[in-house]
């Protein structure tokens, strides 16, 4: 029997971006809040001080900050005819571990979705007709509009001190920014980062080919910044150790640099680390959660009663916890019935590698969300008529790093090892650029998450099973985007150009992105969503999933974090302004 703890107003499962934001907002509102986090406490100066945080072998190769499969993994298969097997090494995507979650190891790309993304199905059917979408594509409109979420994007970007150049302020186009973006209520909190030579050359080539390049929105500080919580961030040093690393210089927005020290000042907030929530407990009616049960590192079980349960783990593990707790009807891909696990989606990425003639690009001068981008081929920014696909993505030159172990570009035909390989890497390192596309991944009837029938974790609970493959729509889109990117790249007059469009089947053995979305989708109809428009469970009204990417109905052509953070604030306001006044279903 678990030992029962004194009740709290709110229990938060997972202390990453959404857990930190909800913790802050609700503790500030006077509620008694506890956050339970599976991994360890992580603090900038103690856990990734600049004296050793830039250790590529430890962090980028050996993945020190990430979840280990022996803690939790999932099984995988490409389609329903296969038998799924457990993932024994995370490679394609890398879930985080510990306080800060993915907010510690992200690059800092801070993108908003397009206004049309929020009414995707309606928009596409209106423009291209109902027959334009594949029959098994299960995309749907979001239950809120861009106009409604805009103030919350603004709040999250101000929390992060995001650097960039607006392209549209209150409907007025701004030169130098993204001409396709939705309106912004204000300019970015900090000016754009300085660009390296590679991104500058790409921007010239993009302009020459009729595109509109702009600096990538980045939560890496272009200058020192103090956020509305009083948290102070320092100027980025362009060291190029962002993704897979914690920032030792207080320069990358993270729960550590933006929220946690301010949150810890509240005496009514507690963090319980190295403790894994195993289930959300329900009362006898099944309509109300009574709290959670968690297990600590000694194996002892504890029950934490609470009036509100906030599911703030990584997207995939939000889905699993809902399945294990029996909240919402599990999705059945055969019948299309049920909702939990439905509409799992990912991201469709591709690249074009170029080697230039005489340039010295100094690629080690880099930061996570560095780069110049064109957005002409994202979402529905271009006419898809006759192209045979919907969706799109951004493309550009983003120099996230030039780290010595993994940055080893060589001309084609170079041996994979030995003296000639070494000579080629040293001759090529400063002349090579990898341009990339980052595109949507729409949802399909046969791409989903459910509990595996065979494999169990160390606590005896079923692992979650992922069934996913790229569909023809996404592969055609990737081929199209890669061709457009190659056209720009040709204007750089490279000595070598290699196109790498995304090809099927989806495999786990090459890193793509850690943008796993869907499974606990928010929507306007309980028949096709787990959560209502306030990220509240349709079935158990005191359970919320406040904005983790598991709530996305499909994935769009941008990185998810800005939308995750915006939805966290959106849900926090709904809880404070609506739910606390009258606890019950908000819809």
């Amino acid at each position: 029997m678990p030992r029962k703890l004194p009740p709290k107003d709110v229990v938060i499962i997972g202390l990453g971006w959404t857990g930190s934001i909800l913790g802050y907002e609700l503790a500030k509102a006077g509620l008694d809040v506890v956050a339970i986090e599976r991994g360890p406490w992580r603090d900038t100066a103690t856990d990734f001080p600049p004296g050793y945080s830039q250790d590529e072998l430890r962090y980028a190769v050996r993945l020190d900050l990430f979840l280990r499969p022996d803690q939790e993994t999932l099984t995988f298969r490409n389609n329903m005819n296969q038998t799924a097997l457990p993932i024994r090494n995370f490679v394609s995507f890398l879930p985080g571990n510990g306080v800060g979650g993915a907010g510690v190891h992200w690059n800092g790309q801070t993108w908003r979705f397009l206004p049309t993304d929020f009414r995707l199905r309606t928009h596409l059917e209106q423009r291209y007709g109902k027959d334009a979408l594949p029959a098994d594509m299960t995309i749907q409109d979001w239950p809120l509009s861009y106009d409604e979420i805009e103030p919350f994007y603004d709040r999250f970007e101000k929390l992060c001190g995001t650097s960039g150049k607006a392209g549209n302020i209150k409907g007025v186009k701004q030169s130098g920014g993204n001409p396709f973006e939705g309106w912004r209520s204000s300019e970015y909190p900090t000016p754009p980062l300085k660009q390296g030579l590679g991104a500058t050359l790409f921007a010239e080539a993009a302009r020459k080919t009729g595109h509109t390049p702009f600096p990538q929105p980045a939560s890496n500080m272009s200058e020192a910044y103090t956020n509305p919580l009083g948290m102070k961030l320092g100027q980025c040093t362009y060291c190029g150790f962002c993704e897979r690393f914690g920032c030792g210089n207080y320069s990358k927005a993270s729960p550590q640099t933006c929220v946690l020290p301010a949150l810890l000042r509240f005496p009514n907030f507690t963090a319980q680390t190295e403790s894994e929530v195993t289930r959300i407990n329900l009362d006898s009616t099944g309509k109300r959660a009574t709290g959670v049960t968690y297990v600590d590192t000694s194996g002892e079980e504890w029950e934490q009663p609470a009036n509100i349960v906030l599911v703030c783990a990584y997207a995939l593990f939000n889905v699993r916890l809902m399945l294990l707790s029996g909240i919402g009807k599990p999705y059945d891909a055969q019948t299309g019935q049920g909702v939990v696990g439905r509409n799992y989606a990912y991201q469709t990425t591709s690249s074009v590698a170029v080697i230039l003639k005489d340039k010295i690009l100094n690629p080690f001068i880099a930061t996570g969300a560095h780069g110049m981008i064109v957005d002409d081929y994202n979402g529905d920014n271009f006419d898809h008529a006759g192209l045979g696909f919907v969706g799109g993505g951004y493309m550009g030159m983003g120099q996230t790093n030039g780290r010595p172990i993994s940055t080893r570009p060589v001309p084609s035909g170079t041996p994979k090892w030995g003296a000639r390989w070494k000579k080629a890497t040293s001759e090529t390192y400063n002349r090579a650029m990898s341009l990339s596309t980052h595109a949507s991944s729409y949802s399909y009837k046969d791409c989903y998450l459910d509990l595996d029938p065979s494999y169990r974790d160390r606590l005896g609970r079923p692992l979650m099973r992922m069934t996913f493959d790229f569909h023809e729509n996404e592969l055609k889109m990737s081929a199209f985007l890669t061709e457009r990117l190659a056209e720009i790249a040709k204007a750089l007059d490279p000595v070598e150009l290699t196109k790498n469009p995304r090809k099927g089947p989806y495999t786990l053995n090459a890193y793509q992105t850690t943008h796993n979305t869907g499974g606990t989708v928010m929507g306007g109809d309980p028949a096709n969503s787990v959560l209502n428009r306030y990220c509240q469970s349709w079935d158990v009204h005191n359970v919320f999933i406040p904005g983790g990417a598991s709530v996305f109905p499909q994935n769009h052509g941008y990185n998810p974090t800005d939308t995750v953070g915006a939805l966290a604030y959106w849900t926090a306001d709904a809880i404070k302004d609506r739910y606390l006044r009258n606890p019950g279903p908000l819809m």
Partner: protein
Amino acid sequence: MYRSLATATLLVATCNVTFAQDTQSFDRIERGRYLSVLGDCAACHTAPGGQPFAGGLALQTPFGKLVAPNITPDRETGIGNMTDQEFIAALHEGRGMNGKRLYPAMPYPAYTKMSEEDVLALRAYFATVLPVSNRVIANQLPFPFNIRQAMMFWNTVNFTPGRYRPDPQKSAEWNRGAYIVEGAAHCGTCHTPKTILGGDKNDEALAGAALQGWFAPNITTDSHRGIGAWSKDDLIEYLKTGTNNWTLASGPMAEAVTHSTSRMTDEDISAIATYLKDSGERDSTRKPDPVVAEDNVMRAGAAIYKDSCAACHTDSGTGEVHLFPRLAGSPLVQSGDPTTLVRMVLLGGRAGSTASMPTAPAMPAFDWRLNNAQIAAVLTYVRNSWGNAASAVSSVAVANQRDTGTRR
């Protein structure tokens, strides 16, 4: 708290008899609570993680270990049986219950300046805190220092009892500041250099002193080693938030800011700043000539600085306001005693967190990465670059601190 400067002066200078007699008055207890903040009583009398004022924090003095006693109103183990007269005698004369001599780790040489009604207000407040049964063996000094009677001799040499006497030439605000600095807040307990007996060197008041592995910096108006270059607003911001354009509080001062100065009224912080900015010009220390940049140690230090320090403190030593302390022009960096500097590089340190400046950024430890000669070189470089000038740091000094340094 204090509605106006006039009221503040009144409270300092006069004795309100009717007020003093009502020990249950809310105003008086609240005033006592506030005085306990001014005096930062909890810093010594509350053990880390312990019950408020139940004692138990061990103070490492140069003479041995003293443990702060339980000052909750528990009758057995606290001060529940203490009379008001005994309480006054403790603060004003350094005599505890039954006339027992106190050690000056209890800063009665400063508290003696507090008015009697303030002491009684403090007494009234302590009578209201939760009584906690916690027996503390206060005197853990070795022989011969454990003989309390020795304090009679110490007091004749080092202790001048007597209340604060306002200076009529100065403003009410200045006098309020002096009353707090010299009395309740007992700033000199850390910041004033000590004689061999541990008494204050009164002619060097607030000129900086080493204690417990730190150097409490010079806070006189000395423009080179003190805070002469700080504006009054700089001082106010520092005491209020723990940081200003020049530096961030860390170590014991971070605790003092967190628990005491940041909780003071704006009027009192302003009064302290007024007093510190106007307590006598003291450019007694001549600015030394800097170690020249061509010196081999300086060149080695420059290279180490570039590798290990410049990312945060910047190439020009300017740091970042409220985040990374400024090294160029910093009095602490150029202080005669580099104890704090060596400690910071060896062990690192963390700034305090306050309501308006919650970040509490930290300096990482470099003891595992830099050897004694390297630390000496980089500190010599920092102390003699960007207009700074101070004596070179020796690797022997670093070695000594590495061996004896207390862990965070």
